[in-house]
């Protein structure tokens, strides 16, 4: 017991703070922006930030699981374009319900292709999903013929499809509710079920996982299904909110999503990370953007700050793990 207290005094507290630096940073940012702008900490502002982060957040949930299992998914941006274009385009043709169903099936199929190539054929995930990024973008353009799509303006205000992006429950916007519901669900699965432990095991030490009887191929496959499912949900929200879609609406999202996952402290090496941290990472990115705008900085200044924040966050994490600030490389 004495030893424990001693350890806590001598640096485990430092290490604890460093390892959870993301929470500290989050609070620090909120306080700083709150002091800097009196509009920042209002309910309306907070709600609008969370709402606009919800889509990136939902995609980040799936990507977090993929990354925990030791892989990457760069195809989520293209997949978002694909899903959104498809669900919006089909809305007028076959009705909202079937449109959502067909779109989800197609997106899950794309996820299955990713999962098959990476899980069962065991190809490098970065390159496979990079290839899929390009291929799915092409598929989207082929599907839409290069034209933007939208829901017939006369039905935009009457269709129940509008609920997902524009609806409210008890005064809280629907995207936020979906985001937090999905985050809780995925977070529960990953933290408290045998499946979740298998995902961590596969990412942490694949060889040991296989020797302890985990079917690694299936676990990796399933992570891409989860990722695709999250992208499908995000597509529904985006399509419903905008009631239309450009062909490249998701372009560049893959790296933004990855940035927020990394910012949350999920290691690219796999085996560590959590949904809660990813949610914080997503919110930090959103609040940085919003706070800087409210403080009067140009829109793109947020990216420069993001640059610094990402590197500092990961640096702290790495430094805490190795017990020294600078890398020992000569």
């Amino acid at each position: 017991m004495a030893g424990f207290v001693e350890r806590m005094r001598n640096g485990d507290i430092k290490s604890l703070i460093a390892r959870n630096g993301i929470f500290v940073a989050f609070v620090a940012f909120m306080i700083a922006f709150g002091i800097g702008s009196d509009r920042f900490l209002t309910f309306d502002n907070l709600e609008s930030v969370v709402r606009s982060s919800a889509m990136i957040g939902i995609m980040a949930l799936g990507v977090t699981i993929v990354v925990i299992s030791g892989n990457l998914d760069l195809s989520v941006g293209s997949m978002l374009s694909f899903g959104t274009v498809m669900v919006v385009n089909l809305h007028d043709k076959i009705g909202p319900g079937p449109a959502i169903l067909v779109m989800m099936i197609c997106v899950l199929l794309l996820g299955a292709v990713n999962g098959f190539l990476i899980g069962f054929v065991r190809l490098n995930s970065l390159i496979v999903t990079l290839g899929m990024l390009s291929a799915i973008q092409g598929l989207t353009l082929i599907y839409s013929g290069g034209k933007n799509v939208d829901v017939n303006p006369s039905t935009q205000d009457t269709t129940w499809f509008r609920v997902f992006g524009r609806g409210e429950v008890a005064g809280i916007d629907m995207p936020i509710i979906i985001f937090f519901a999905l985050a809780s669900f995925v977070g529960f699965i990953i933290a408290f079920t045998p499946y979740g432990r298998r995902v961590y095991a596969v990412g942490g030490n694949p060889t040991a996982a296989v020797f302890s009887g985990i079917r690694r191929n299936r676990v990796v496959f399933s992570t891409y299904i989860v990722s695709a499912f999250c992208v499908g949900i995000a597509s529904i929200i985006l399509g419903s909110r905008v009631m239309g879609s450009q062909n490249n609406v998701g372009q560049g999202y893959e790296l933004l999503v990855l940035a927020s996952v990394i910012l949350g402290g999920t290691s690219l090496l796999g085996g560590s990370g959590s949904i809660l941290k990813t949610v914080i990472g997503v919110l930090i990115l959103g609040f940085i953007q919003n706070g800087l705008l409210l403080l009067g900085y140009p829109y793109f200044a947020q990216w420069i700050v993001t640059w610094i924040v990402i590197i500092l966050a990961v640096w702290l994490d790495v430094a805490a793990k190795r017990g020294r600030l600078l890398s020992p490389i000569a």
Partner: protein
Amino acid sequence: MAETSVESVSAQANQGVKGNFRWVVRHPIWAFVVIIFLFFSLMTDTFFSLGNFENILVQTSTLGLIALGMTIVMINGNIDLSVGAVVALAASLTVDIMGWPMFESWGNWQILPAVAAGLASGVLLGALNGLIVWKTGVDAFIVTLGAMLGVRGLVFVYTGEQSFFAMNFAYSDFGASRFLGLPTLAWIFLVFTLLIHILLSRTVHGSNTYAVGDNREAAVNAGIRVGPHMMVNFMIVGFFAALAGITLSTQMGASTPNLGRDYELWVITATVLGGTKLTGGAGNIIGTFGGVLAIGILRNGMNLMQVPAFYVLVTLGVILIAVLFLDKQLNRKGDGELRI
């Protein structure tokens, strides 16, 4: 006596065939380049002409220049995702500085400080990336992912989200100029390809590059200063990204803040097509050159066949995965865990 000589000759021939086959196995992308080259030559009337080959070289020179640097960085076991943003930064800086009032009386010489500043920005950002990777030990993927966002932000803040136009026409004339029977931009690409090939295959720095990527611990034990070494390589890729930005802006006579978007993905595609491993330690410029040509020929040929650009995207994605699959089948070495 006669028998043995016949045997040895046939053995030699056999070895020759094997040798050639091995060359194809080592560079499967070149087999693909030959196939699509023949395909488009037969399928279109316009593909097989010297003018079109020049076109392909010029069109791919931007991608190709960056791919040269990316190859080195990837052999090192690192990656650089910030190249697309550096393309935009260098182009914007160069085109903007050229028009500064202080250089007004310089005539065409005003291009010189502008290009120098553009190239310097790339080298400096490369040095910054390299320094962070070296000193913090954070994975290059994350460091350059951050830089990709941050540098793009810098570009937008610097340009005020505006496009710049080159008022000095000598600058845009350079993009269309010719030298010894080839477009100058094609020369730039070819010469740098040769230089980097020599750097990688004939110099100490080149063998260090493979050593560091293959086994970092061993490289440290062999006395290579891994940190500074990696930093130099990041500076090289930064230089090439900046150079590509400048050649791209000479072609357009302008720069836009969105220039080079998604280039990082295309460049990585070209490099991986060429057989460079993300895990480091393997790859070469011959392969990368093939990968760049494959993308160039595919885009150009499908364009000439009037296939919509959409199908090029699908084809490229499928080919990238197919090459990876083939590579795994052909170069099976145990059950290697591919990791970034």
